[in-house]
């Protein structure tokens, strides 16, 4: 159920008021038909979450279509015009460039970049925000970006890995775990993915596929005589939509 202010709002009303279609319509339907009450301060906050979720999906699909490659952190690479590669294999924003330009460069000069799936997830979040927020706001919110797995995310994105969620939504970050991974290929100990809706996921290194496809790919990298299959964890990662909407709405 969706509550805006203190009023519940039906899916039909929402569809008419916000002219929803495609992924946004699907997300709104899941929210509206849930037993759980999703509360928003105003319609603008709901609209922002739908826009950002759609933007995450688009950024994930675009990255998959690009020439951005999979490489382990030790062999990662980036465009030195915008990023410095650190000792641990992360990409640190250069001082003299605009953060939004540097994020966009990963998509436009994608063949200059290669890394593992966790950093790819973080790149997708930043790109989704570049496309949703005004550039001036994005650059003031994220003046220092360090792309290295999940460990250096900006607090303003506010990613939380929720162990239990009421509903899974397109745009959620999910994780397929591979408990019996071959120890010589720890990069396949799991796959970070985005839920693209309709049972499809994007994971860097594997691409877009169903849950079964992701599991079957991960299972190829198990130890000999492995007993356990890869599986999808229950948890879901989400940015702090409310905090980001606050920043956006007070800026425009």
């Amino acid at each position, binding site marked *: 159920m969706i509550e805006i202010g203190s009023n519940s709002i039906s899916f039909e009303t929402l569809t008419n008021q916000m002219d929803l279609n495609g992924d946004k319509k699907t997300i709104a339907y899941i929210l509206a038909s849930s037993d759980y009450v999703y509360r928003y301060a105003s319609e603008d906050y709901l609209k922002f979450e739908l826009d950002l979720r759609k933007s995450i999906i688009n950024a994930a699909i675009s990255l998959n279509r690009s020439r951005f490659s999979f490489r382990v952190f030790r062999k990662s690479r980036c465009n030195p015009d915008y990023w410095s590669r650190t000792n641990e294999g992360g990409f640190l924003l250069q001082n003299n460039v605009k953060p939004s330009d540097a994020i966009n460069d990963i998509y436009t000069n994608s063949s200059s970049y290669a890394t593992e799936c966790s950093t790819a997830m973080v790149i997708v979040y930043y790109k989704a925000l570049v496309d949703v927020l005004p550039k001036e706001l994005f650059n003031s919110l994220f003046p220092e970006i360090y792309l290295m*797995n999940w460990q250096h995310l900006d607090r303003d994105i506010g990613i939380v890995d929720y162990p239990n969620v009421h509903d899974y939504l397109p745009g959620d970050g999910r994780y397929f775990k591979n408990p019996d991974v071959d*120890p010589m290929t720890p990069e396949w100990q799991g796959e970070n993915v985005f839920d693209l809706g309709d049972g499809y996921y994007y994971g860097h290194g594997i691409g877009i596929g169903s849950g079964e496809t992701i599991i079957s790919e991960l299972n190829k990298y198990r130890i000999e005589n492995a007993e356990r299959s890869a599986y999808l964890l229950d948890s879901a990662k989400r940015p702090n939509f409310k905090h980001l909407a606050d920043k956006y709405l007070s800026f425009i």
Partner: protein
Amino acid sequence: MNKSNILTSKENYLDQIRLNKGIEKMKGAYNDLLSHNEEEALDMLNSENLQFPTLFVLHGEIKKQRLLDKLNSRNKLALNIINTVFSDNIRFDSDEENHKTAKWMLETGYESDGLNPHYDELLDKVAVALIKIYNDHDSLRIIEKLIYNRYNRGSYIYDLVWAFFESRNPESIKMVVKRLLSKDSKDLELSQKLLGFVPCPNRENEHDIIFQYKYTSRWISENLPYLCYTGDHFQQTPCPIPFELSLENKYLQNTTQLESPKNQRSYTEDELSILDDFRKLEPDKQELLSNHSHFLHKISKKRWKKWINKSIADQIENVNL
């Protein structure tokens, strides 16, 4: 050093030159020795006291000079491991000789970590193999040192951290707790990250390190027997929780075997019936009962047995008295 003392010295002549004068000088000394006295050069390479980094930096020369067949089996196996890592086709055979070689590579090689990216990658693979293939938990101490040294200089730690906790060895947790007392702020920062599963209050207060250490040590000491390994790691989530306290296990005084792939033993029918009610409780009540169960079991097993067989309502009433 007088060459007549070369083979009797405790420290290998080639290692000494590498450590005191650098890699290039050592390569020069080796090539010089080889051209004058091949047997002596090979004796040095094959001697028991050779350190792995010297073999590593000479592996190109050895290959060029076609000396592979004249090396001892330790060196042959080590060079084979180097080659497989560089060809992205690494395999460690699970026999004892390979185990010993991997152990030699880590033990004599970890102090040269940072030599070059290939070398560091190789050390990662060797360390992971020692834990995951050879189940060699004696290596945890060195792996811990590697992790903290690398964190200090901003190098890649994540595969080592993964293997370190995958050992499921309680000692790995205790080592991280001890680092809370380090005077190095980076050590402290990393320990706090790795111990994110301990619900320590006041973690943000950098000045209260002694409190953090004491609280964390006490919490670990009380809860270690009931921790379950989750497999969470830094590539998976922003705040991984690699170990999780099982309130059910603490409540039933079911000590977990962290080393075992399964985290809990099978329950008896009586235990299952007690657990049924326990699982219906709110988390704060579960915590209350599990803490009380632990306390009671410690002071009197007889009193604990009497208490655990009461109804849940009576157990709670008993705790509140």
